[in-house]
């Protein structure tokens, strides 16, 4: 998968000379080829991640297409505020690569492990979140991120687990990619990133259970997702990430919102505030004023 990532980066640099790769002194050997062919499109910003992300914003404002590489423990976690304010608020075309996600750096301990990146970014508007499971998904999501010309985060977890798919062309924009066919119509397994391979193996032990890979976590096409999941009575989600704010939470939210029998969640709906105004004004803008809440709750209670 790292070779695929390297090839994606080289492809992006070749396709557009405005592509510029920034790293915070990480990525040993990953960028050897890139640096050989595109030395002028490579910047080692030093062990200074905050400045690196701020600079990426400045470069994007000047028409460049920055790709910011780091270990997921640092990009996005250490620079979450720069991502929120400098990049996402302005919706600048910057791709973040968070390598070594999950427990990849097992021996190094908690400082280098990262099971909160998806959760942390999920609450920030304007950023797409990807979690590819193999080299084919990597290529697919990288191209998707490039085309978006908007903030994207690609989570790169344990990446020597082998292929899931046979080729990239079999992938599509569906939120759920079938990676194991089963005829069990009541139970389904959903997994993302590094856990897809293990989930397929696990499904074999349970018989005829279908497994789907979820390479894009945000935004998720709710309609397509729900159509696919409708028939299943039991859904198991598996991810190398906190159960708070990851794949499972995300699927649960979509299901809950589509069929709010018990819970109707009111809060800020993936947006930044727009205008200047008083506290009450901004609450109203977000639908958190008493009248708006009364109306939406009434509707929920009638359903």
């Amino acid at each position, binding site marked *: 998968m790292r070779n695929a990532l390297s090839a994606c980066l080289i492809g992006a640099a070749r396709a557009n000379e405005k592509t510029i790769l920034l790293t915070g002194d990480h990525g040993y050997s990953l960028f050897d080829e890139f640096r050989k062919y595109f030395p002028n499109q490579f910047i080692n910003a030093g062990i200074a991640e905050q*400045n690196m992300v701020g*600079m990426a914003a400045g470069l994007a*404002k000047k028409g460049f297409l920055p790709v910011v590489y780091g270990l997921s423990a640092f990009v996005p976690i250490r620079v979450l505020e*720069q991502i929120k304010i*400098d990049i996402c608020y302005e919706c600048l075309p910057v791709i973040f690569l968070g390598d070594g996600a999950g427990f990849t750096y097992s021996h190094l301990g908690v400082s280098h492990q990262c099971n909160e990146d998806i959760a942390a970014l999920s609450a920030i508007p304007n950023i797409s979140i990807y979690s590819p499971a193999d080299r084919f998904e990597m290529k697919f999501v990288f191209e998707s991120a490039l085309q978006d010309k908007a903030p994207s985060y690609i989570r790169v977890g344990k990446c020597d687990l082998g292929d899931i798919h046979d080729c990239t062309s079999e992938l599509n924009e569906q939120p759920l990619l079938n990676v194991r066919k089963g005829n069990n119509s009541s139970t389904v397994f959903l997994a993302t990133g590094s856990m897809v391979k293990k989930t397929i193996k696990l499904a074999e032990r349970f018989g005829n259970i279908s497994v789907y890979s979820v390479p894009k976590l945000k935004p998720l096409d709710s309609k397509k997702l729900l159509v696919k999941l409708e028939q299943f009575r039991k859904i198991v989600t598996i991810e190398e990430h906190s159960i708070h704010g990851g794949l499972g939470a995300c699927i649960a939210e979509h299901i809950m919102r589509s069929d709010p029998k018990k819970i109707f969640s009111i809060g800020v709906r993936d947006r930044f505030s727009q205008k200047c*105004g008083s506290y009450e004004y901004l609450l109203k803008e977000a639908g958190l004023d008493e009248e708006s809440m009364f109306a939406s709750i009434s509707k929920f209670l009638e359903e």
Partner: protein
Amino acid sequence: MRPNFNPKSIRKTVIEMAYAGSTVHIGCALSIVEILAVLYRQFLNYPNNDPLHVDRDYLVLSKGHGVMAQYACMRELNWLPEKAIKDYFSNGSELKGLSEFGVPGLEVTSGSLGHGFSIGVGIALGAKLSNTNQKTYVIVGDGEINEGSIWEGALFAAHHQLKNFTVIVDENGLQALGYTSEILGLGSIESKFASFGFEVLSVDGHNEIEIHSALNQLQNSLSSKPKALIAKTIKGKGISFMENDNIWHYTRLTPDIYALAIDELVRNDL
């Protein structure tokens, strides 16, 4: 015709806006008035007076708290409708209490401190890589340079010889809860930036002739270093009872105080 950016008229707008919006952060706007006046009058190039012109120079107000002084300059440039000044902070209006992108003339969203500096470094790097002559000026507060990201950016700017990058430090000696010297002493800001590889000059930040001459000297320098101008300023400058009094970081204007402040600006104008 270019406006003359009279500091008194800029201060008057600041006071009018602060009163209209019942806002805080007055002192830190008043300390950068002369710096902004000189930059807008003599250094910043906006072809066709267009704040979004692709060939413009960049003014990044990293200390976003001083934004009212920048609004005041933008008013002189006719970039802001009068209504925006009068309706400051009204519900549904555009101008916020800290610098935010989306208002032509404001380059960044700042206020969370230590962001604008790095964005400015990125803009300067982008201009250099694109072989343009565009200049980037970043105004930071002395309190703001407590932030580590400033020094990350300073290392980068010097290492990459971003001579098109100028930081101006508004050294008014005060930050939110008191004197910078008592909170996190900075020592000599000049020697800090010099040791990071910047070409450094200091000036009286309220003396327009000194600011002009120092910026000229920095811009005409043959060195490939990034530039730092350390401006010794007074928080609340121009309104006697606000000078060096940190309550004007937090206090709102009452009708009486507003009248006093305006009176002082008008009186001194005669």
